[in-house]
């Protein structure tokens, strides 16, 4: 109980969650984020035709949300221009370097002599990857990008605009995507090798549903006296929160209600540590202690120099 209280007051007051939303333009990323957090988190330039950026940009928007005494500082990073060009070689570079820059910033602060007590955490906790609903399989660009991203950040693949596919088409598409992911050894979140035994059955269920087929909407409609979020068309209403219509509710539950803490924790513990290890090892490759044949302990080396 006490931890609950204390964590509400202190740790979560500065709880930050960073998400990167990636995908080609027009896939409904901003709408999706707004639906997820039920607030206009991502600003959409509706109506105006924005000139397509000539490079893949990385844009971040920070907002502070509060619910039930819990305050969440949410940062959404969007990647307009990704995959929109004719030649998309290296379009993932700005994104990868952005993610690594955040890790680098944290590492630098952590290593300072006079460091802050609460290091501002701008590391990306989750990357939502939007797959266009072609109905075929993962494109080569998707494969390339996912292969590079899954090693540095938690990746959650999502099929955007799922209302263009019927349920059978959806199931087949998901099958093919899952096959593609395993063929190319792309590890998406939740990671199988790091999970605890308690979470295993839950995570299995989530993995069976990957990638989530979502529909986003911020317009409310009234049906039988109930207010629902959905997309209305001539032949019917696609409800966002209806589990039989799309996987939005499952995704939202996983992302926010059950796995948010794990996303933040695993970024700090695994991806950040991997980055740190790689970064510190490259700087000291020429100075491996030959006597022990292992990485030299920093302190040992420093103590040696005092002899």
């Amino acid at each position, binding site marked *: 109980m*006490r*931890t*609950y*209280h*204390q964590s509400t*007051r202190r740790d979560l007051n500065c*709880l930050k969650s960073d998400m990167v939303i990636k995908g080609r333009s027009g896939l409904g990323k901003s709408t999706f984020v707004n639906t*997820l*957090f*039920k*607030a206009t988190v991502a600003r959409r330039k509706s109506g105006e035709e924005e000139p397509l950026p*000539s*490079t*893949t*940009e990385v*844009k971040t928007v*920070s*907002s*502070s*949300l509060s*619910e039930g*005494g*819990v305050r969440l500082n949410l940062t959404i*990073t969007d990647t307009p221009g990704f995959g929109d*060009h004719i*030649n*998309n*070689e290296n379009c993932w*570079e*700005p994104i990868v*370097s*952005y993610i690594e820059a955040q890790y680098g910033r944290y590492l*630098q602060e952590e*290593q300072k*002599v*006079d460091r802050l*007590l609460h290091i501002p955490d701008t590391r990306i906790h989750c990357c939502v990857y939007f797959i266009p609903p072609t109905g075929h399989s993962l494109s080569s660009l998707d494969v390339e990008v996912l292969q590079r991203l899954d090693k540095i950040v938690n990746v959650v693949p999502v099929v955007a605009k799922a209302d263009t596919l019927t349920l059978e088409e959806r199931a087949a598409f998901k099958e093919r995507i899952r096959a593609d992911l395993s063929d190319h050894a792309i590890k998406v979140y939740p990671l199988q090798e790091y999970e*605890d035994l308690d979470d295993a059955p839950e995570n299995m269920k989530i993995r069976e549903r990957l990638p989530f087929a979502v529909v986003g909407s911020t317009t409310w409609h009234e049906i039988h006296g109930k207010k629902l979020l959905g997309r209305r068309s001539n032949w019917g209403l696609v409800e966002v929160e209806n589990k039989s219509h799309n996987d939005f509710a499952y995704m*939202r*539950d996983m992302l*926010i*209600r059950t796995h*948010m*803490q*794990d996303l933040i*924790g695993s970024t700090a*513990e695994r991806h950040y*540590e991997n980055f*740190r*290890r790689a970064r*510190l090892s490259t*700087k000291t490759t020429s*100075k491996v202690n030959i006597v022990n044949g292992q*990485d030299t*302990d*920093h*302190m040992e*080396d*420093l103590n040696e*120099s005092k002899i």
Partner: protein
Amino acid sequence: MAAVAVERPPIDEKIRTLKLSGHVGFDSLPDQLVAKSTQNGFTFNILCIGETGMGKSTLMDTLFNTSFESNPAPHTLPAVKLKSHTYELQESNVRLKLTIVDTVGYGDQINKGDSFTAIVDYIDKQFDDYLQEELKIKRSLSAYHDSRIHACLYFICPTGHGLKSIDLVCMKKLDSKVNVIPVIAKADTISKSELTKFKQRIIQEIKANGIQIYQFPTDDDTMAKVNTEMNNQIPFAVVGSTDFVRVGNKMLRARQYPWGTVQVENESHCDFTKLREMLIRTNMEDMREVTHQRHYELYRKKILETMGFSDVGQDNQPVSFQQTFEQKRVEHREELQRKEDEMRQTFVLRVKEKETELKEVEKELYTKYDTLKREHAEEKKRYEDLKKRLDEEKAEFQKRKHQVATQQLTSHTLTLGKTKKK
């Protein structure tokens, strides 16, 4: 070809506060955190400092309601030593790894000047171990068993007068390294009125000497009132007991005297319940935080600065840890190289010296050998001459002998002839 220019993301400096139009669900985050922490288990390390026989082990037993196996220490130890034991306790589904560190032999020596060095060294070593783990390239901070001391209970002798000088000196040394909580031990030896005066004296002396004991946090609204009240009651006068006595129809922890029974859990008898409340039930987490954020950071800063690291380089440019480390490494290598060269030179010199020495000895030996050989040859010749002469004499003698023999024979025959003529 799409240019690969990395644009620095324009971060929205003003974080906007948004209103939610529905239930999102991240208010379950504290629950997620709690579940995660409970799964990992908690660690808590207590250091008990006090003279032998103060009742430290008994108090620990009483606080945690178990009996930790510990033998009472003798009074004859030559120096202060620290003994630490780790126990795994479990209550409902919360696991606690408790480490209790005891000072053995504190205050028993004639010269108590060095009493606190062992304690300070121990605390520093725990910080050092953590710092080493943190600086490693391949580290696992979440799996690391945190052995830094979170709370230090300092047991004050119930003399009734005030703090002893060793108490003041020791607390002063420790107040910047660990959360010091002074307690009055064996409080059943002091009466109520004496106790209030004693407490006042202690607080006065602590303030006069500038010792910063641990204050319970008062910034949290829910606990602020209780904590401020408790802060005024420090030091807690405690009584510990491992014996249960039947009082009324319950078995309570108590100490039974002929004139009455001191109940440990009775608020009017002693402050034990307050100590337990503050130490375990309310502020355990805060103590861990303060240890990590204040004491450990202070230690880390000091150590890194003594090693020559700083955040600002020579030209007042911000220097990263890596750069300084690289510099030091290069310097160190050069130093080692220099030493190696020096040693090699001295080695070469020594070798030359030894060589010349050996050569001379060799020469000497040769000359000796030559003379000896010559002498032997001369002696041999002499003896051979002698032998030759002897041989010649022998031959001469033989010849003469033969001559005489033949002469005798002829003379003999002559004489024979002579006698016949008559």
